């Protein structure tokens, strides 16, 4: 089985499959009912959950490519953006900033998350001998913080997008954006819990040799 590291290199078939499947997962989550809020009608969606999950599970490089694939396929016209929309039209819509931030946010989350997972592995290998899984919360919190970093990045770019394309002032844009913060924090926490379980089921995912 292939070992994977966090640094850019040739994409093998495992990476390719993971990238494609997580792009599909993002599409499916984006198609869950979206609730438009705020002045410009940018919706609350599960896309951010998918972005966090992809980052935490795949790591920076692959997560970037997975979400970039999602964005490109959507821009080509396949209706996989929030509310069954697709095509270059969204570039003229108010959510363009968020959308374009997704690959970068996934990369950031992934880079931070996989670093924590590998550290955890090293620590656990030298520390515990028992077969029962020991404290998992430490890793969960680190993954959550990685998610928050990605959250901040995507919200900054989202605000800039609403200002440039939606024609809002900085204040109005920040206020519109605030509505998403509680939901996105919950999504980051959920993603962290799920990712911890995934790393337990697939210890090889982060490429750390146990």
């Amino acid at each position, binding site marked *: 089985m292939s070992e994977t590291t966090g640094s850019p290199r040739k*994409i*093998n*078939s*495992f*990476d*390719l*499959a*993971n*990238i*494609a*499947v*997580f*792009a*599909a*997962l993002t*599409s*499916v989550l984006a*198609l869950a009912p979206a609730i*438009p809020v705020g*002045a*410009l*009608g940018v*919706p609350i969606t599960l896309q951010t959950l998918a972005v966090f*999950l992809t980052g935490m*599970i795949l790591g920076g490089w692959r997560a970037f490519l997975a979400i970039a*694939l*999602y964005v*490109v*396929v959507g821009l*080509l*016209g*396949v*209706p*996989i953006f929030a*509310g*069954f*929309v*697709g*095509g*270059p*039209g969204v*570039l*003229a*819509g*108010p959510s363009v900033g968020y959308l374009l931030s997704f690959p970068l946010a996934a990369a950031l989350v992934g880079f931070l998350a996989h670093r924590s997972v590998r550290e955890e592995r090293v620590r656990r290998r030298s520390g515990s001998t028992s077969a029962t899984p020991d404290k998992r919360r430490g890793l969960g919190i680190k993954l959550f913080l990685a998610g928050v970093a990605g959250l901040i990045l995507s919200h900054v770019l989202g605000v800039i997008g609403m200002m440039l394309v939606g*024609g809002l002032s900085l204040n109005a844009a920040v206020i519109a954006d605030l509505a998403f913060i509680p939901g996105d924090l919950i999504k980051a926490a*959920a993603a962290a*819990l*799920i990712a911890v*379980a*995934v790393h337990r*089921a*697939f210890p090889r*995912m982060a490429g750390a040799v146990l």
Partner: protein
Amino acid sequence: MRRKVRRDDLLGTYVPGRSLLHRCPLALKAVLILGLCITVMLIRDWQFSLAVLALTGLASVVSGLGLHRWAASLRPLLFLVILLGGYHLIFNGPARAASIVLSLLAVVSLSRLLISTTPLPRLIDGLVWLCTPLSWFGVNTERIGLAVSLMIRSVPWLFGCLGELRDAATARTIRANPVRLVTPATIATVNYAHQTGEALAARGLD
């Protein structure tokens, strides 16, 4: 029984036909449609956008897609249109509101025309061709096409997987709320990605 959306129709919206639009070479069609998209976004004039929107409706009818499909492709935008239109109507006046709403509708239905008159494999070939410049930097563009196919193929699997897990949970009388299912669903997804990667390797598509 509740009427179910066909799981794979979600993305593969190609409608077979022999119309002019169906037979038009992809490159020409894409240039025309994307060119119109960009023009709409640059001009941002409500009359022009309305004209383009009407044109897409007409093209739908002429190429055998029907007005029904055309309207259905715009329905998901309804909520967004109401909010966006309402906001700009109040703050920026009717002209601005109409131009923003109509240009969005025009651009979305334009891209829908492209998707529904071109088979997916042809579209993917087109994307691969578009990515040719990337090959100068050592990117294997064939693999981009492969990734897109795999992605499209995985969507119905993901829907099926959720269904199976829901069945499994209900059969075990474990309340199948989505929160309890996301973790097993994600784990199953990662397993599926592993199996797919293994199949890719085994079939020499490395």
